[in-house]
């Protein structure tokens, strides 16, 4: 896979605050790459550096091998779906979508036809002649998407493009965006703070926090092999607890769980001592004769799942998810249960 975007130790400072601390990674051509992180971690800042709205303070960004420092935004083969849409208020929906085509010198008929197609794709054909102010937030977001896709850029930057949509539409758009990306071969750099969105759509994910990339990998890598507490906690649900590590070798650690049970699990840490252990709730099951005993504290009904919150001996909380199935008896609060940690449930973190 060739490289579309090569980000080399980029630092971005705004006065005294540093929004990006030496961020570096490569995004492959035709990759669906996601920047995932909480609000304020620098996702938009990084996108703006790629699009050319901000100059990097240090480092380089290469687009298909070419250093783009100093290249004006209008000369970069990159389009953006803005977080706040930024639709042109004086142009109708179809003229908004056709704007980039007009700038590229496409004739009126051709660009109207193409813009019409794009609107069809985002299910807004009926709204072609409306003004942006007459659309709902979700509709505006879809216009922004169509507008950015119309000129067929080599790279599409999407800044939380689905955040204003309701759940049903968001789910439908996820599938559509993904298949669109596969069809067009455009490299997508997708920003979100919604981990579910990131996990379902991305080829690879960069998890960011406080201006730093914490981990890069496929959804599976990151979910099952988080390197640190931030990633483990941010991606999915997890139980974090401090444990004693007696030995570490070859990426496997021997740890003592609260309550005294000894466990062998994969480790990101490399030295024995006290470390954090992550236990995924869905990999813990209720099992007669399980190795861990705990006391049920609360049971939360979630529809497809039931969350059982327990405490290990010594008061350390451990919650688990069980499928809401007729075959499984859900224990009542106060009951003592025995639990089984499945393969890959636990992972020792680096920090």
């Amino acid at each position: 896979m060739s490289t579309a975007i090569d980000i080399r130790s980029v630092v971005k400072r705004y006065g005294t605050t540093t929004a990006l601390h030496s961020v570096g990674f490569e995004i492959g051509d035709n990759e669906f790459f996601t920047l995932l992180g909480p609000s304020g971690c620098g996702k938009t800042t990084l996108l703006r550096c790629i699009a050319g709205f901000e100059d990097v303070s240090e480092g380089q960004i290469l687009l298909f091998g070419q250093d783009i420092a100093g290249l004006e935004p209008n000369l970069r083969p990159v389009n953006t779906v803005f977080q706040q849409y930024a639709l042109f208020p004086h142009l109708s929906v179809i003229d908004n979508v056709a704007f980039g085509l007009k700038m590229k010198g496409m004739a009126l008929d051709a660009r109207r036809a193409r813009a019409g197609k794009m609107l069809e794709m985002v299910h807004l054909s009926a709204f072609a002649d409306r003004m942006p102010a007459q659309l709902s937030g979700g509709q505006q977001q879809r216009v922004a998407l169509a507008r950015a896709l119309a000129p067929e850029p080599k790279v599409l930057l999407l800044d939380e493009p689905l955040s204003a949509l309701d759940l049903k539409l968001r789910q439908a758009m996820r599938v559509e965006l993904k298949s669109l990306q596969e069809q067009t071969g455009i490299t997508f750099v997708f920003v979100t703070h919604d981990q579910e969105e990131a996990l379902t759509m991305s080829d690879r994910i960069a998890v960011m926090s406080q201006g730093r990339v914490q981990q890069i990998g496929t959804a599976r890598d990151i979910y099952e092999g988080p390197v640190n507490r931030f990633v483990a906690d941010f991606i999915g649900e997890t139980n974090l607890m401090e444990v004693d590590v007696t030995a570490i070798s070859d990426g496997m650690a021997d740890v003592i769980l609260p309550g005294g049970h000894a466990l062998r699990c994969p480790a990101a840490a490399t030295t024995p001592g006290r470390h954090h252990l992550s236990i995924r709730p869905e990999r813990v099951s209720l099992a007669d004769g399980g190795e861990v005993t705990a006391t049920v504290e609360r049971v939360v009904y979630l529809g497809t799942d039931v969350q059982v919150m327990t405490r290990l001996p010594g008061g350390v909380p451990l919650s688990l998810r069980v499928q809401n199935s007729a075959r499984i008896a859900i224990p009542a609060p106060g009951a003592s249960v025995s639990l089984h940690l499945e393969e890959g449930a636990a992972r020792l973190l680096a920090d």
Partner: protein
Amino acid sequence: MIGVFLLIPVLLMAVYSFLTKEFRGGVIWDFTLAAYDQFFFNRGLFGDEPPVIEWTYISIFWRSIWQAALATVACLLVGFPTAWFIATRPPSQRSVWLFLITIPYWVNLLIRTVSLKFLIRDNGPLNEFLMGLGVITDPLPLVNTNLAVQLGLFYSYLPFMVLPIYAAVERYNFALSEAAADLYAPRWTILREVVLPVVKPGVVAGCLLVFVPSLGAFLAPDLLGGAKTYMIGSLIDEQFKGSQGNWPFGAAVAVVLMTLVLIALFLQARAAAKGARE
């Protein structure tokens, strides 16, 4: 309520324009169209010849419209960049800049116009300075020219252009410029295709606020201009002064002027409504 007080003088003026003039100023309550007849038609020295179109006043109107339009364009060319500059300063500095813009306007308009005349007269500071530099050998004859009137109008009404445009640019969402740049628009295209259409209401308001008072201005043309730069404002002004005055005629000129302004406003409003629908 306030509308009534605004309407009364206008109605009064309209009524006076249909009255008969009294020779030492004032009116006689005899209804007649004489004032309008005098404005539009020439019936010879004794009023007994067949009427032909009277061009004197129409050409004064025409010249005034030109002068006002030129002043509006000048104010726009300077006012837009100025407003843009102020609106793009950090918020804490903006009010300082606006304050600086308005300082000259604390001085009475008459005094400002007279000072301008002193500045540009033959042995005034401007000419002395230019001759001192050796740029010119003889003083530039500025007073009593169209240029002087333009200067006066420009100087009198510039803030009326700057302030509404400033208000519009300040509200402008600069993410729109970024979106346009992202979609391959170069700088000037962004200005033409996105910025100007979005801040247009401010620009239109500024142009009206400069054009309308420029059209009826009399201080600048009176003090800085001469016989060749005579404008409507002076014509009206004269009709209400001394024994040479003609109140109904002055009122009639004012009514014609107001009608023109209203037509202009109406056309503008219709164009704006049409623009909004598109």
